[in-house]
């Protein structure tokens, strides 16, 4: 297999190390962090309007978080050794943090918060369902079936604390992913202190957009009316975070252009040739400027409900495309040029290989499947759809 090379690459650089799976990884964790931050808005800052999305956001975060480590595992040369990450984490490596941040976030934050929030529902369900579901819910109660007003108040209190801890954890979860790239001094395309910040904000953007889209989609499927006040507020947040995200990215760009250090000529050439389509066209024009303009329209002009809904859907989808392109351009773009700044290689994606496109597609569908299961098990909708409160203790 001959990989086309332009100019001069160090001979070991011709082959790309990190594939589309590593593109997927920050994309997925980004959705987790973003969805969680949206959920915590309601909880900590008491934004009542976004309440209908609260549980959905938590479940979305969980579904994506379960899948997030899979692309990493699959791309390892020796997945069976990955537990070394827990045994002998190397203190100076950003990557070694992954195992701990992940476990912490999964168990101490997300699962705990969901459990606390759903505890009453689980207890109710364990008494109203039959068969294996009953057994399952029984197990999920973890033996605590007390749903008196007092114990629920405690749940609420603890849940609040967990959320407060959760927000910095979400930042940590995704900020460190940015740091993995931002701290590589060998690679000028990555090396930037802004990287973690850009990653966090783009994560929020993508998470908020996902929850917004899912909320609209699920309500449509269930034939429920969409709470426009809620969607409008979520879209507003999307707009604001997007502006911050875009400004940060532009700041990074302008800084690079103005400083024009030794790597600039090479990177500039790359952005105008190999990365023109994914970077300029998809990421910046289609995936960032267009949704920002669309969202700005809904903020400035008074539009009908249907039109607003349509705009949100289009803007949301474009946003996700744009954020995915951003991950692509960071991960793949950062490996296309030579560290000698004298040449460029090509990324050849496999199709049905271990790190190929098919795997990537399966891994992107998987969280949706998990979400579907989670939604079936733990319905995020208001009570009237589950069985009315007959239970007590």
């Amino acid at each position, binding site marked *: 297999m001959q990989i086309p090379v332009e100019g001069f690459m160090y001979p070991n650089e011709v082959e790309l190390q990190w594939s589309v799976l590593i593109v997927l990884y920050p994309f997925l964790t980004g959705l987790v962090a973003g969805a969680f931050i949206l959920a915590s808005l309601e909880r900590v800052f008491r934004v009542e309007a976004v309440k209908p999305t609260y549980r959905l956001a938590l479940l979305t975060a969980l579904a994506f978080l379960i899948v997030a480590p899979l692309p990493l595992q699959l791309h390892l040369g020796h997945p069976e050794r990955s*537990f070394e990450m*827990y*045994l*002998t984490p*190397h*203190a100076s490596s950003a990557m070694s943090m992954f195992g701990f941040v992940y476990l912490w976030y999964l*168990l*101490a934050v997300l699962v*705990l918060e969901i459990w606390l929030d759903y505890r009453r529902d689980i207890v109710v369900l364990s008494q109203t369902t039959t068969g294996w579901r009953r057994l399952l819910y029984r197990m999920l109660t*973890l033996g605590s079936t007390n749903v008196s007003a007092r114990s629920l108040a405690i749940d609420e209190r603890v849940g609040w604390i967990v959320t407060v801890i959760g927000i910095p954890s979400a930042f940590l979860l995704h900020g460190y992913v940015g740091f993995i790239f931002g701290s590589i001094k060998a690679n000028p395309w990555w090396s930037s202190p802004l990287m973690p910040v850009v990653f966090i904000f783009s994560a929020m953007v993508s998470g908020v957009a996902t929850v917004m889209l899912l909320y609209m989609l699920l309500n449509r499927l269930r034939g429920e009316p969409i709470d426009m006040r809620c969607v409008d507020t979520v879209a507003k947040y999307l707009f604001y975070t997007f502006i911050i995200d875009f400004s940060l990215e532009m700041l990074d760009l302008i800084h690079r252009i103005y400083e024009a250090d030794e790597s600039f000529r090479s990177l500039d050439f790359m952005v105008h040739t190999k990365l023109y389509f994914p970077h300029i066209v998809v990421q910046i024009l289609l995936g960032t400027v267009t949704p920002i303009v669309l969202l700005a329209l809904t903020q400035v002009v008074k539009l009908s409900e249907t039109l607003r809904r349509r705009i949100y859907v289009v803007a949301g989808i474009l946003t996700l495309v744009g954020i995915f392109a951003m991950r692509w351009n960071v991960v793949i773009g950062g490996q296309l040029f030579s560290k000698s700044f004298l040449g460029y290689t090509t990324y050849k994606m496999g199709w049905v290989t271990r790190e190929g496109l098919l795997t990537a597609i399966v891994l992107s569908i998987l969280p949706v499947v998990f979400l579907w299961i989670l939604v079936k098990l733990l319905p995020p909708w208001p009570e009237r759809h589950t069985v009315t409160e007959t239970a007590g203790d």
Partner: protein
Amino acid sequence: MAAVFLVGVLAFLGLRGLLVPRSFGQYGHYRGDAIKEIAALPVSYAGHQVCEGCHTEVLDVKSKGMHKGVACESCHGPQAKHADDPAAVQPAKLDTAVLCVRCHAANSSRPKNFPQVGAAEHSGGEACNTCHQPHSPAMVAGGSQ
């Protein structure tokens, strides 16, 4: 809940004690034995001192000629196996038509002061060792000295 966490942490620490390789941390944050394992790998190039111990006659010739700085295995290839058991392992015969031009073919990228020849017109198609003695190339009759 707290109990679950505590048990988890304790189990983790216990397992860690069992699973971390014993030499880990001997010199630093890595497996100390890895150094020994790498140091114990077999050698393919014996080194010219070894060859010279047996092939003194070649050394005598070579050390007076222009190739004195060129190690035996530069031309003869890795010969540790031969040096261990000369009777069992014989070095392959060399083809001077390929060998000499690797270093001496004229090339404007090479330092100017390095002796180079346009191989075809210089040798007239003959093998280099018909005129040059590989171990002392410049001393053959009609040579440059």
